[in-house]
């Protein structure tokens, strides 16, 4: 178990809860695309880094997870979105 970062407390989790709810409300009421995409990415990062403690894991694990998801997602977007637009 890593103790290099300050260990989260119950309070940390409820602060994150408040941020996640605020972001959700902002996304619903301000429907602009940049806010939606930014909101999704910020929410996803908060959940993985804080709730799933990814920030406390070993660097190897962080890289394995991040590379796996981002690389393949990027390939999906690059291959499928332009094709969809061209149809």
């Amino acid at each position, binding site marked *: 178990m890593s103790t290099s970062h300050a260990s*989260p*407390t*119950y309070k940390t*989790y*409820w602060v*994150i*809860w408040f941020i*996640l*709810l605020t972001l*959700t*409300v902002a*996304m*619903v009421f301000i*429907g602009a*695309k940049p806010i*939606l*995409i930014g*909101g*999704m990415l910020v*929410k*996803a990062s908060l*959940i*993985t880094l*804080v*709730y*799933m*403690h990814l920030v406390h*894991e*070993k660097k*190897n*694990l962080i890289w*394995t*997870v991040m590379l*796996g*998801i981002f690389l*393949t*997602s990027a390939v*999906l*977007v690059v291959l*499928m*979105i332009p*094709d*969809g*637009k061209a*149809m």
Partner: protein
Amino acid sequence: MSTVHTHAVSTTEAPFYGAEWRKLMMWLFLVTDALLFAGFLGGYAFARLASDTPWPDREAIFSLNFITAMTFLLITSSTTMASAVLAARNRDLGKAKLLLLVTALMGLVFLGMQAFEWTHFIHDGARLDGNPWGVPAFSAYFFLITGFHGTHVLIGVLVLALTALRSLKRENASEMVEVAGLYWHFVDLVWVFVFGCFYLV
């Protein structure tokens, strides 16, 4: 002190990652599972961009307030789950059990709300192969994506109940709760993208 086992590692520790192996396996599974949903949402984006007819107006079809309430519920359940992991780590097992069961209950309510939403959607004429709004891919992707997500929630509820009722008695209770928690947070994580991509964008 034994000289033979100087380099032996505990069975719950993988030397390369320094993370417990159950946790490592769960992370690797979650990466592949994330790719499943990335594929679904990528396919959804493709179908939507390639559609000749304009994509149906989701706000007119679904109650966005209702879906937002579902989102709140799932986020809150993720918070109680994170708290359960912390309680188990502090060996406060009674609190961990309560938080796990509360989390599972919220998952069940979420499933109930989803069933309610599906019922309405089907009642309005939506089918896997067509719908009154003239874009068959719309309802097909709706059932596919929310169906797969709902199945994940259902499995999550079972995992949480099993963890609360059985795994907490084990020596490695805190590790078991953490692994179950990773799965549950992932379910919430997927919903962030389903909610954003399907209902809002």
